[in-house]
């Protein structure tokens, strides 16, 4: 009796945590869908086949690297270059994973390792914000539910793969989708998430350095190196000004 009751209870909270994650991710899902459509439309123009773009979005599931890959999709295919660029663009996941680790390491490894496949920028940002929010309430080791994490991360998967598929089919009909003002949706959402991450003025110096270095890097260097340059100069700044002791 009791066990059954507890199972129903924990099932319920699993569901409600998952749905809360989905709910918190919804504005970003709306922001991401147009990007998926643009990716599909561009893939079509770049002579990437429908099966190629679908496999790519389904197995790789990291937008920035997919935009880069289809730019390089010429015959003969520069396989190693595409893989290297994919790694460089997605290397920000290393830092994202490291940052969220204190909040998920209480979870069993066999569950968290497959779940991490779905950690993209948006779902991670939503989860990280939730972790910070809960950190003030519970003990820091137990403050991110796997169900919330999956609720915040997983919905991007069908939306991304589906939007790219749709974009590939309808792309030729739409013309230039960026003319509708959606180009700003992505940074606007990230700005709101950023505000949620503001904990103390300790972040100010590293963030400003990241902004300056990334902007200059974007203007001066070709490709996506500005992301790495901006991130690492911010991290180095944080290291220099960081507390030596508690």
């Amino acid at each position, binding site marked *: 009796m009791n066990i059954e009751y507890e199972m129903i209870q924990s099932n319920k909270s699993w569901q409600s945590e998952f749905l809360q994650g989905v709910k918190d991710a919804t504005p970003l899902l709306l922001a991401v869908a147009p990007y998926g459509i643009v990716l599909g439309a561009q893939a079509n123009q770049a002579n990437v086949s429908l099966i190629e773009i679908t496999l790519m979005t389904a197995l790789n599931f990291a937008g920035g690297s997919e935009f880069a890959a289809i730019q390089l999709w010429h015959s003969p295919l520069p396989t190693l270059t595409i893989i290297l660029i994919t*790694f460089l663009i997605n290397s920000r996941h290393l830092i994202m994973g*490291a940052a969220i680790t204190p909040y998920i390491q209480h979870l069993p490894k066999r569950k968290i390792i497959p779940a991490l496949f779905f950690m993209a920028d948006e779902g991670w940002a939503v989860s990280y914000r939730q972790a910070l929010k809960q950190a003030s309430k519970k003990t820091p080791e137990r403050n991110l539910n796997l169900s919330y994490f999956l609720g915040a991360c997983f919905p991007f998967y069908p939306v991304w793969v589906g939007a790219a598929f749709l974009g590939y089919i309808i792309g030729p009909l739409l013309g230039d989708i960026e003319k509708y003002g959606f180009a700003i*949706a992505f940074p*606007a959402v990230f700005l709101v998430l950023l505000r949620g991450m503001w904990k103390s003025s300790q972040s100010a110096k590293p963030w400003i350095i990241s902004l300056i270095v*990334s902007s200059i890097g974007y203007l001066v260097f070709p490709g996506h190196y*500005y992301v790495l340059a901006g991130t690492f100069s911010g991290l180095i700044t944080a290291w220099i000004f960081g507390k030596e002791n508690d």
Partner: protein
Amino acid sequence: MISSTALLTILGMAIVTYLTRLLGFLLLRNRILSPRTKSVLECAPGCVIISVIAPYYVSSQPEIVIAMLIATICALRLSMLPTLIISVISLGIIQKLFN
């Protein structure tokens, strides 16, 4: 259909991307972090996000830069959905005005 080179390229992308997602977690798990390392990790997510969106502030299209400033002001004061709606509509209007 799909060529074996294309399949290999996509599989290679998939493997390195999944590795980037796993490694941050696997390397830091079960470590006790120094306060300095903690303060670096705390501001790291913001550094990544700022670096990803920085190009919008220095875009060669003035309408993007203006919309970005509007979005920044909204984000400081409003929640997610109003920020998103105001930003997208602003850019739509500004683009109409510029063209």
